[in-house]
């Protein structure tokens, strides 16, 4: 892999389930940059991630992951807080993440059961454990769901300090959040086509 090769390259991708719901779409994520992917509900933002996880079908185009990249993936979880005796520290161990990455303000959550946390506290534990995973490519799907102002600010700070050897694709309908953390934003139309690409800042 060359230094300038992307961690993820998507070329003319058309993807969906029974039929395509998104595309044609091209984008790349390089080390040192955070790319945002926004659009209204139902535009197919999460479908790109689901192609990577094998849950959605690629009808045309190509999706390429750099070899030996390692992916830290936070898809929208079916887990919605039902009874589960799993503590925050164990969630970090599941992802092979060090709890040290968690901001000090959130560390008191580590010994607590995640089903006994508020929705926002639980979301913080899940997202930060993904950020703590060793994968160089970070995929986050609606990471600000349920977060309060403090949790959101902490996450913005964390993504801005992402290691320059890593890159992230952030899928979110939270336009303000995406603008604060991303180097580039790709906006989708309600029909699932890219409408514009906005470059906000220079990647590291």
């Amino acid at each position, binding site marked *: 892999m060359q230094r300038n090769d992307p961690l993820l390259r998507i070329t003319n991708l058309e993807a969906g389930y029974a039929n395509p719901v998104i595309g044609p779409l091209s984008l790349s994520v390089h080390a040192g940059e955070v790319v945002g992917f926004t659009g209204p509900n139902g535009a197919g933002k999460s479908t790109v991630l689901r192609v990577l996880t094998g849950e959605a079908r690629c009808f045309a185009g190509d999706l390429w992951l750099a070899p030996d990249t390692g992916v830290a993936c936070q898809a929208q979880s079916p887990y919605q807080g039902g009874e589960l005796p799993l503590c925050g520290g164990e969630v970090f161990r599941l992802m092979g993440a060090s709890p040290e990455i968690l901001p000090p303000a959130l560390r008191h959550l580590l010994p607590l059961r995640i089903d*006994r946390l508020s929705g926002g506290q639980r979301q913080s534990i899940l997202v930060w454990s993904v950020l703590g995973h060793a994968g160089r490519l970070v995929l986050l799907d609606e990471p600000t769901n349920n977060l309060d102002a403090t949790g959101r600010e902490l996450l913005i700070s964390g993504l801005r300090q992402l290691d320059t050897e890593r890159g992230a694709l952030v899928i979110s309908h939270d336009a303000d959040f995406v603008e604060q953390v991303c180097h580039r934003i790709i906006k989708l139309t309600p029909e699932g086509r890219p409408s514009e690409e906005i470059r906000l800042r220079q990647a590291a």
Partner: protein
Amino acid sequence: MDLLFDPLFRLPFVAGLMAAIVVAITGLYLRLRAEWLAALGFAHLAGAGGVVGVIIGAPPLAAALGASVIAVLVKGALQRSGNDVYAWLILFGWAAMLIGATFTHHAKILGDALVDGQLYFAASAELWATLSIAAATAIALPLLSRSLLRSELFPGHDRTNGRPLWPVTVGFDLLAAVAIAVAALVMGVMAAFALVFIPAWIAFALAGSWRLAVLWSGLIAAALYTVSYVTALLADLPFAPVLVAIAAAAAPLRLLSKRLGPRPAS
């Protein structure tokens, strides 16, 4: 009272104790996957397999395990999770077990044993089966545990990293199916179901972490089993109904969760 220490009863006691602990810990993961009905599904199909084994002259234990393995493969091929697959296994297994039991006297005896639970007649074959499945669980479950938990909280993470989930789920299903089949043959279908469902149900409420939940589940199963074994033997009652009644009576233990650990945040 002397019966409790009679060497004749040591073998069934140990066989049942091993089976109880193994299925209770397995039950924790089935509850995690919302598949706790698996116990009844696999147990009924194992029962049907055992009865069919008797009819065709095959060893019932091997036939029961074979039926369970076939059920896992069918479930894997259907690529479905959740309880609906197990509901079909219960209906099919129950009908096949009871219809099959009408064909020969030996099949009827086995059918009755599966319903009543004939723990005291467990022989060395059952003991070896339970020890084997306990050893397999002790080796395999720690390897599968992380992936099973991760797939609930971070769906797609392993697949994105080129690690398909199906070897984990099929491996776990095989382990659960064989453990439940052995438990059902040793102590009866409903007793096996009670041990899959109730210790995990209590542990989910009480434990402060997954590691503690595994410990709670195994300890609760061992305690319920031992109390039931002694009670049934001393009172000369059939084991399975005694175990189910005592396990059901332990339900208020869940209320202790109000005293243990922090409550949900607002």
